[in-house]
C-alpha cells in the first residue's frame, strides 16, 4: 500500500509540475496553523476554503456543462437560510442541519432546472440570475420570519475553536474538490460524466445524436452544483455565526464567476487559484483595514482582474499551466517544462 503510494508519487506526481504544486499547496494549508495562530488569519482561510467549494461547484455547472448560471447564490443562500431557520425554530444542531441544507439546495437545483432547461445561452444565464433576487424579495417581505435585512444571528459554531473549524472546512473542501474533480475528469475510465459534460458544452446536438440523454445530464449538473454550493452555504453561516441577505445577493453570484473566470474556466484548479489569489491574498494583506490594501480591497481586486484578463484572457491558472507544462504531441501525456523529450514515448516536445 505504502509502496504503491510512493510509486504513484514518483511516476505521476513528481514529473507533472501542476500536481506537484497542488500537493505542496495542500501541505502548506495543512501546516498553516503552525506558522501563525492568529485567529483572524485562520478565519480568512476557513472562509476561503468554503468559497473554493462554492466557486468549484459553479465551475462544474457553468464551465463544464456549459449552463452558465448567473444566480449561483441561490443554492448558497437557500442552504444558508435552511440551516439558520432549522436552528432558530426547531433548535436542530449543525451536524443535522448542514446536510439538510445541502439537500434542500439540491432540491432547489432540480426545481430551477425545469424552466432553465428550456432555455439556452444568455437567456438561461439571465433567467437563473432572477431566482435568487426573487427569493431575496420574499425574504425581505416576510421580515418577522426571516429577520429581513438583519438576517438570523446567533448560530452555533461547528467546532469549539477556530483551529477545529479550520481543519473541518479544509477537510470538507479537499474531499468536495476531489469528488468534483473526478466527476469532471474527461479522461477517467470509470466515471463518464466528465466526458459527457464536455460533449454537451461543445455540441449539444451532436451529443444527443450520439445517444446521450442530454437533459438528464444537465439536471445532474444542476444537482451536483447545487449540492456542493449548498454545502458551502450551510457551513458558511455556521462559521460566520449568522446568515444575512448577502448570501442571496447578486454580488455573491458574481463572486463565483469572478474567482472561476479569473483563475481559468473549465478547470477545477482555476477556481482554487482564483479564490486564493483574489480573496485570501488580498484579505490577508489587508487584515485590520489599517493599511492601503485593507481600505481599497474591492478596487484592487477589480483592477487586478482587469489587468490579468487583458494579458491572460484564458485565466491566470491556465496561463501558468501552459508555461510550466507541455503536452506530448504523440501520446498526450503531460510533461514538465524542463523536459525536451516525452517521458513515456521519447517523442520530441518541440
Amino acid at each position, binding site marked *: 500500500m505504502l509502496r504503491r503510494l510512493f510509486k504513484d508519487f514518483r511516476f505521476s506526481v513528481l514529473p507533472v509540475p501542476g500536481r506537484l504544486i497542488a500537493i505542496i499547496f495542500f501541505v502548506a494549508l495543512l501546516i498553516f496553523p503552525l506558522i501563525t495562530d492568529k485567529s483572524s488569519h485562520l478565519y480568512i482561510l476557513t472562509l476561503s476554503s468554503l468559497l473554493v467549494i462554492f466557486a468549484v461547484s459553479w465551475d462544474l455547472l457553468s464551465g463544464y456543462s456549459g449552463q452558465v448560471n448567473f444566480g449561483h447564490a441561490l443554492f448558497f443562500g437557500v442552504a444558508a437560510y435552511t440551516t439558520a431557520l432549522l436552528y432558530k425554530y426547531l433548535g436542530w444542531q449543525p451536524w443535522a442541519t448542514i446536510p439538510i441544507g445541502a439537500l434542500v439546495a439540491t432540491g432547489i437545483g432540480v426545481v430551477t432546472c425545469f*424552466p432553465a432547461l428550456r*432555455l439556452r445561452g444568455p437567456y438561461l444565464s*439571465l433567467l437563473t440570475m432572477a431566482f435568487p433576487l*426573487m427569493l431575496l424579495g420574499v425574504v425581505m417581505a416576510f421580515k418577522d420570519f426571516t429577520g429581513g435585512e438583519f438576517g438570523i444571528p446567533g448560530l452555533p459554531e461547528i467546532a469549539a475553536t477556530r483551529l477545529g473549524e479550520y481543519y473541518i472546512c479544509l477537510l470538507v473542501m479537499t474531499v468536495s474538490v476531489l469528488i468534483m474533480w473526478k466527476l469532471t475528469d474527461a479522461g477517467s475510465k470509470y466515471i463518464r460524466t466528465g466526458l459527457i459534460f464536455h460533449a454537451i458544452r461543445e455540441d449539444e446536438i451532436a451529443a444527443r445524436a450520439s445517444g446521450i440523454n442530454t437533459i438528464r445530464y444537465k439536471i445532474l449538473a444542476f444537482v451536483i452544483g447545487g449540492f456542493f454550493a449548498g454545502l458551502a452555504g450551510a457551513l458558511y453561516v455556521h462559521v460566520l455565526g449568522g446568515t444575512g441577505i448577502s448570501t442571496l445577493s447578486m454580488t455573491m453570484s*458574481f463572486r463565483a464567476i469572478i474567482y472561476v*473566470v479569473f483563475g481559468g474556466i473549465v478547470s477545477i484548479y482555476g477556481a482554487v487559484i482564483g479564490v486564493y489569489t483574489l480573496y485570501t491574498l488580498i484579505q490577508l494583506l489587508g487584515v485590520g483595514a489599517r493599511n492601503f490594501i485593507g481600505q481599497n480591497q*474591492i*478596487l484592487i481586486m477589480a483592477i487586478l482582474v*482587469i489587468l490579468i484578463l487583458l494579458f491572460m484572457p484564458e485565466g491566470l491558472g491556465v496561463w501558468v499551466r501552459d508555461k510550466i507544462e507541455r503536452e506530448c504531441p504523440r501520446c498526450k501525456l503531460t510533461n514538465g517544462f524542463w523536459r525536451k523529450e516525452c517521458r513515456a514515448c521519447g517523442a520530441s516536445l518541440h
Partner: protein
Amino acid sequence: MTLVTGGVYALLATGFSLIFGNARVINLAHTGFFMLAAYLLWYFMRQLGLDTVWAIVITVPAVTLVGILAFRFLINPIREHLAAVLLMTVALAMAFEELMTNLFTSHYHLLPNLIPGYTEIFGVRVINQYLLTLGIVVVVIVIVWLILAKTKLGIALRATAQDAEIANLMGISVPRTLMITMGIATALAAVAAVVVAPLWTIYPGMWTQPLVMVMVVVVLGGLGSVKGSIIGAFIIAFVEQSVITLMPSYTYLSTVFAILAMVIVLIVRPGGLFGVLFEEERL
C-alpha cells in the same frame, strides 16, 4: 411615474440590447456607466456650480468617451473569450463603484429638479421634471430609431448584428461599427442618468437595481430587439409600479413580481416577446 420609470428602463435596455445584438457582449457594466453619468452630473452641478445645460453637455459626451475607450482597450482585445468579457464588464462596474465611493464618499446625494414647478393635466398635478424626462426619453428613442432605420450607419449596425462575418466581407469595418454601437449605448445610459438623476438618489451602489431590471426587460422583450426592449420596459415598469401602489407594505416584492412576469413570458416563449433567435448560435 410608471411612464417615467418605463422610459428610463427603455433607454437603458435599448443600449444594453444594442450591444448584445451587435457585439454578443452581455455588458454588465452598462448601468455602471449610468451611475458614472449621474455622479458626473452631480459633481458638475453641485461641486463646480456649472449651469445645468453646460453640465449635461459635458457629462454625456464624457461618459460616452469613457465607454468607447473601455470597449476599445479593455473589451475588444479579448472579445473572443466570452467568459473573460463577462468578467471584464463586472470588474469594470465594480471599479466604477469603488472609485466613486473613494472620490465622493458613499453618502446619498440629491439633485434639484432641472426645471421647477408643475403643470396641471386633466386635473392632475404633474411635476414638470416628469414631463421633461418623458419628453427627452421619447425624443432620444425616436432619434435612435431614425439612426437605426434610415441612415447608412444604421444599416451597417443592423448588418453587423445579423451576421458579423458577412458584414465584414461587404466592406463594413466590424470593430469600428462595434465601437460606434458601444458609443450609442453608453450615450443612451448617460442620457437616462441625466434625466433621472434629479428623481432618484445618487449613491455608488445605484447600478445594481437598474441592472437587474434592465436584464429583466431585455429578456422579456427578446435579446437584441430594440422594439422588444422598449415595450418590455413599459410592461415591467407598469408591473413594478402597480405592486408599489397596490401593496405599499410589500414594496420589496415589486422586483419579485417583475421577475415573475419575465419568467412566465420565458416559459411561454423561450425567445422573449420579439426575440431574434440566432439559429446558428443555438447549437
